[in-house]
């Protein structure tokens, strides 16, 4: 192994820190602006450290975003994630381990639709939901998103294809039903892939904007991204410190989840995409 000279190592460290500072700058700016007073945030030139911390911004921002939107976002993200997990894991398992006519065609269907973006289906999906009278209802908001199964089915199929057949066969010979094989043997061994899938899906659902925008009009079903966009697109008189606090509040929960699930998240994302 050749020895890397000290100055080259030092240069690399300095470069890494500089780049990280540039990438992280918007987050720093977000944090300090969210805590500034309305006067300081509008002062020129802008300050790098808030002279005076105004924690009441949080209350002001919540009043605009509304507590209801926060609750809706939690319900929306959890129901999308749980339902989609349930459907994707069972379908993925069936395609990988059950022999039945049409299973290859199903796999092909999911792989092809993996490349069809939801935006292209926006208009027809809206029409179907409208014809079901589901506009401004929870099923109309949640189910079309749950239906985006291609990625999940693909991820779980890839995982279960590598799963040892002997294990399942032994259980089957001992008389276990498919339901028992799945719940008692397969699920307990699927922890990491489930964690990876859940972390990616919950993030996607929490940040989803277009479908809620199209499928809901009432405040009762408003999720955080919609409330957040209203801060800048509709009410020009909102001061930047309150708007930034709104961004911070709506982003913090997902940052906390990300930090605690980072390992699964990273492994899951890289593993799923590299297949």
């Amino acid at each position, binding site marked *: 192994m050749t020895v890397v000279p000290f100055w080259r190592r030092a240069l690399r460290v300095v470069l890494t820190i500089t780049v990280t500072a540039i990438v992280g700058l918007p987050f720093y700016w977000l944090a300090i602006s969210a805590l500034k007073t309305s006067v300081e945030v509008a002062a020129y*030139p802008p300050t790098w450290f808030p002279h005076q911390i105004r924690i009441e911004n949080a209350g002001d921002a919540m009043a605009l975003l509304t507590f209801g939107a926060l609750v809706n976002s939690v319900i929306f993200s959890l129901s999308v994630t749980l339902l989609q997990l349930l459907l994707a894991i*069972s*379908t993925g398992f069936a395609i990988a381990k059950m022999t039945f006519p049409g299973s290859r065609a199903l796999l092909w269907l999911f792989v092809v639709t993996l490349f069809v973006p939801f935006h292209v289906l926006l*208009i027809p999906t809206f029409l179907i939901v409208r014809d079901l009278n589901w506009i401004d209802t929870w099923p109309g908001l949640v189910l079309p998103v749950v239906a985006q199964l291609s990625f999940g089915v693909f991820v779980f199929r890839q995982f279960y294809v590598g799963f040892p057949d002997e294990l399942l066969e032994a259980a089957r010979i001992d008389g276990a039903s498919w339901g028992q094989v799945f719940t008692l043997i397969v699920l307990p061994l699927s922890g990491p892939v489930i964690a990876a899938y859940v972390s990616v899906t919950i993030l996607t659902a929490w940040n989803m904007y277009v479908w809620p925008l199209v499928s809901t009009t009432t405040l009762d079903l408003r999720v955080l991204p919609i409330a957040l966009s209203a801060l800048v697109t509709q009410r020009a008189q909102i001061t930047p410190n309150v708007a930034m606090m709104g961004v911070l509040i709506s982003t913090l929960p997902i940052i906390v989840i990300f930090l605690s699930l980072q390992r699964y998240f990273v492994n899951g994302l890289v593993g799923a995409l590299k297949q």
Partner: protein
Amino acid sequence: MASPSTRKRVLNTPPWGWVGLFVAPGMLLFTLFIAAPIVIAFALSFYDWDLISAPRFVGLANFLAIPADPRAVNSIVRTAYLVAVGVVPTVIVSFLLAALINTRFPGIKLLRTILLLPLVISFVASAVLWRYIFDPHLGPINLLLGLIGISGPAWLQSTSWSMPAVAVVIVWLRFPLGMLLYLAALQGIDPALLEAAELDGAGTWQRLRHVVWPNVRPVTFLVTIITLRGVLFDSFDVIQVMTGGGPIGSTDILIKYIYDAAFSQLKLGYASALAVALLLIVGGLALALTPPRSAGGSR
């Protein structure tokens, strides 16, 4: 006596009830909200429909109208521009940063976590944030530019700077995923290869260019496709909130026009034709970029 392979087939072939239980609920939703919309999207593109009066079949008229529609032409040009200033820099930044952080020193874990943070923030939240960061008076960008004697433009109010500003946000949002993928690929390169190159007198840049880069080519393809998809479709959120397609249509990309045509102007047939055209362009690009695959690539 059944042969082992037959026994295996029988064991793995469940009764239809079990197959139905595992597959049917997902397929039901998938058919209703993915498969049916795909069919309807294609069908709608041959109709003229405003949601209120009865749909009228117009054949290829919607598609033929696209080249004569100045907003459509502008939005296609703007989309191509965003792809050029968004996708290529994302791929390059992803690769360079992955190469940079593929090392160990105290604190690298924290730095990596910070570099991954843009992956977590929503497009809408980041658009709200960056609107403010690009503010010519209140934001840090022109403040920093001022320190080195540059008087920065009013980014989002300028027809020539608004798209580069959007591209900066897109690169910022998109590079962490590419960086992760490149990092995984870099860690799979045989260190002996790099050492051999170094013994032959190759410098850092030469090793990066001639040893590392060719070895991560499959990842480059993957990152390009993912970023392309993201730029073409997901940038709707960013543009809708950050610029609304303005000023004067300078960030009016195709997906934004499709949305407006459908939900503001209620031209559902025409919007569907635009969406189908976009899908065909993406499909064509993906096919053109796909490297030839060896047979049996289903696993």
